[in-house]
């Protein structure tokens, strides 16, 4: 059996459910409120088999209401839906004294607690790290807030939209079309947000990364710990030379639209049926591209003859016109076929010509590659019927991440969980319900 057959057999969709998850048997309490980074984090832990209990305040997490066009499926919007699957749902007013005592009891049995209110509020209701680590020294306590729990500008865990986190991180400053010199700026020539909730997702994955690290450490030390994380800081290291360039040269990196001053050509170009990506930035690859386009004369043009000339912005603006002259005569798929035909006969740097259609989401959904690999999964929603959702974004042979399927109505597990973890009797549960401390 060759490599490709072996790895496909070991990681194809459906395998995960037959194998154990690395986090089977771990108990995670997710108290996130208005900050989907927490939800994303607990989703990644659930994909590895952890038992995740979403604990929401009465009325539910406000992020259930973050949704386009007022689209609400049963009790959650589309953004929340994606990250709520595969978790149990408990409604408990843990900010009240009685509810807080119950949460503390749950935390005494948990491996991980995730909160986004910030330590000032959590401490004020007796659920801060010092208090909970006192009852459970093995607890890993992750606090995700917009500005962090310490530092001179640290503010309490204020709720803020993803776009604000993106702005703090610097990613917005670097994304978007530059203003054209000498012309008055158009409304679109501005720092531009990433279209999806990137600060929440970067924060969520860093959250899962840090919990996994703390779990590994706990195996040898026997101790839990406190982790402080912000969605915006989670993006900082992704800005690569942003800060080192400022340090070394005093230069502030600016937005360049679809250009790139470190590598070029490395850009989106118009083609017959939309846009496609073209990269061929080392000298050999650029030669290959020029040959493919039938434009070898570009190699003799001093503006394009070397790597450093090609990465000058004014030369990039000229070069892209030549490339589009060729690409606009072909569809994105034709361009892919032509380039693949050529580079499959080459090796080394000359083969580094890379392309790919700029897909609309409905086009991405039509490509069989993602379906075969289980990146897209059909979801039968009890409220709306069939939907397509994204599965896990990585594969493992021994502990494959599982697709989270079940959607639990808000509070559906309140009674069962409080009986199990807090030993509450029926009459006590009734009393708490009447008081509005729990709901189910």
């Amino acid at each position: 059996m060759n490599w490709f057959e072996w790895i496909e057999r070991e990681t194809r969709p459906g395998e995960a459910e037959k194998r154990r998850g690395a986090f089977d048997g771990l108990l995670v309490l997710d108290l996130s409120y208005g900050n989907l980074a927490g939800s994303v984090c607990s989703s990644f832990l659930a994909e590895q088999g952890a038992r995740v209990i979403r604990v929401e305040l009465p009325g539910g997490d406000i992020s259930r209401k973050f949704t386009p066009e007022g689209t609400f499926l049963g009790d959650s919007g589309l953004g929340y839906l994606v990250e709520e699957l595969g978790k149990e749902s408990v409604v408990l007013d843990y900010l009240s004294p009685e509810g807080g005592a119950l949460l503390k009891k749950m935390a005494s049995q948990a491996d991980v607690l995730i909160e986004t209110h910030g330590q000032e509020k959590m401490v004020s209701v007796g659920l801060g790290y010092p208090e909970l680590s006192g009852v459970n020294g093995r607890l890993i306590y992750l606090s995700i807030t917009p500005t962090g729990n310490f530092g001179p500008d640290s503010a309490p865990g204020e709720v803020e939209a993803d776009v604000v986190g993106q702005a703090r991180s610097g990613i917005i400053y670097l994304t978007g079309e530059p203003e054209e010199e000498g012309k008055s700026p158009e409304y679109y020539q501005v720092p531009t947000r990433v279209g999806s909730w990137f600060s929440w997702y970067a924060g969520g994955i860093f959250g899962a990364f840090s919990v996994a690290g703390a779990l590994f450490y706990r195996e040898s030390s026997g101790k839990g710990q406190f982790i402080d994380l912000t969605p915006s800081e989670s993006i900082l290291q992704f800005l690569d030379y942003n800060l080192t360039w400022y340090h070394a040269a005093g230069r502030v990196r600016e937005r360049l639209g679809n250009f790139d001053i470190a590598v070029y050509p490395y850009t989106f170009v118009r083609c017959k049926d939309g846009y496609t990506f073209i990269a061929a930035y080392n000298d050999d690859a650029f030669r290959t591209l020029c040959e493919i386009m039938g434009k070898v004369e570009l190699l003799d043009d001093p503006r394009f003859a070397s790597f450093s000339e090609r990465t000058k912005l004014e030369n990039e603006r000229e070069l892209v016109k030549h490339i589009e002259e060729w690409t606009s005569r072909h569809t994105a798929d034709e361009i892919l076929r032509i380039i693949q035909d050529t580079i499959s006969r080459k090796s080394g740097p000359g083969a580094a010509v890379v392309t790919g259609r700029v897909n609309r989401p409905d086009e991405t959904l039509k490509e069989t590659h993602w379906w075969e690999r289980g990146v897209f999964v059909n979801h039968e929603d009890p409220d709306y019927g069939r939907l397509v959702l994204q599965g896990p974004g990585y594969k493992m042979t021994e502990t494959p991440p599982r697709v989270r399927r079940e959607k639990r109505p808000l509070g559906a597990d309140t009674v069962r969980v409080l009986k199990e973890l807090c030993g509450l009797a029926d009459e006590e549960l009734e009393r708490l319900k009447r008081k509005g401390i729990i709901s189910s």
Partner: protein
Amino acid sequence: MGKNANRAALRWLEEVFSGSPSEKPEILKGVRVVEMATRIFGPYTGDLLAQLGAEVIKIEMPGAGDLMRYVTPEGYFWKNASVGFFPQNRNKYHVGLDLHYEEGKEIFRELVRRSDVVLENLKAGTMDRWGLGYLQLREINPKIIYAANTGFGQWGPFSLGRPSYDATAQAVSGMSEITGFPGRPPLKVGIYIGDFTGALTSAFAILVALYHREKTGKGQFIDVAQAEVLIRILDWTWAYTSLKGKPRTRVGNMDPAVPPSGVFRCRDGFVALSAVTPEQWRGFVSALGDLVPEEIRLLEDPLERTKGEIPEALDEITGKWCSSMKVEEVLSAAQKGGFVAVKVQNARDHYESGHLRARKSVWEVEDELYGTVTEYGPPPKFSDSPMRLKWEAKPVGYHNEFVFKEILGLGQEEMARLEEKGVIGRWDDRPGACPPEKS
């Protein structure tokens, strides 16, 4: 619980995080990683593990090394180094080793025999073809964890022979299509977002595998495709597109799911702003006053504000309000009103931020070759076993002695012979690969 108790607990936080991380334990101390990776997607995974304390041995071709050494803005080299090479290669051991030679492969196998993790980002199947794939390496080290980072994954219609860069993943996933303004071309995100997010996912999976191995003694193979990671993080894109029967499109700077929020032009710069909770909403409408029509003022429930034309209307109103003010005026109005506004931050803002420095998110590395280098520090702040930046990336083969002698036990003569033959080696004398000039 009283106010004093709160302050005491928060003081604990300040104390824990103001100390020097170097006095605390490291999570991955004693874990050895062999990195056979170039550019960003592979190396940043190794960098994250190294920030956690792993001993990461970065293998490069003798001479030129990792091609990222030559990717730097405007061709700028600082002390003969690419400023684009540092941020994915901290705390590593650099060796020059040519795997085209059988002896090079043998040295690689010896390293793997003594290691815990192998990390690579070559085209799918390349290492297997070289006799150094997972199936071959697990024969010599059954507990090995092997992570392969690629554009499209190890198998499936796109995986064979199709190269991929960060922007390929941005393009094919749909991320670029939903970024930018309607009526304008789709926009490439201004950072290598697919590389970094994919690399982080890979590092997460490696930690999962290490944890699992601690419990069971078993290693495993990890397949991370950057396009698939971007598909995973496109929030409600797929739910929406399949539910509505029409694709999600780009809508510029507003967030249609959390209005009002977006990026707005002021007289002297740009701010990002949001008002989410009912309290924040009340503060927002009172700050904007008559600009907000009566029927919209009443919409305290954020769900109601996502309906119909309201997101666009709020975007326009907020834009109008900001356009007449300076950044500072918007920030203080937001503070007074109890909603959130921040200046759109750039490198200088970060560099000068006392807050980010106190949090070690802006971190000064003291390096034996390069002196002080300012870098973004580790995002997660662990109370007991903090991540840290210890030293900068080094020239090709800088740690040959340490790795080949101390770890593998090669003798001086053997090393000289291998170097003579070109199996192992050091930097070319060119910017990007070589050390700084001696001053």
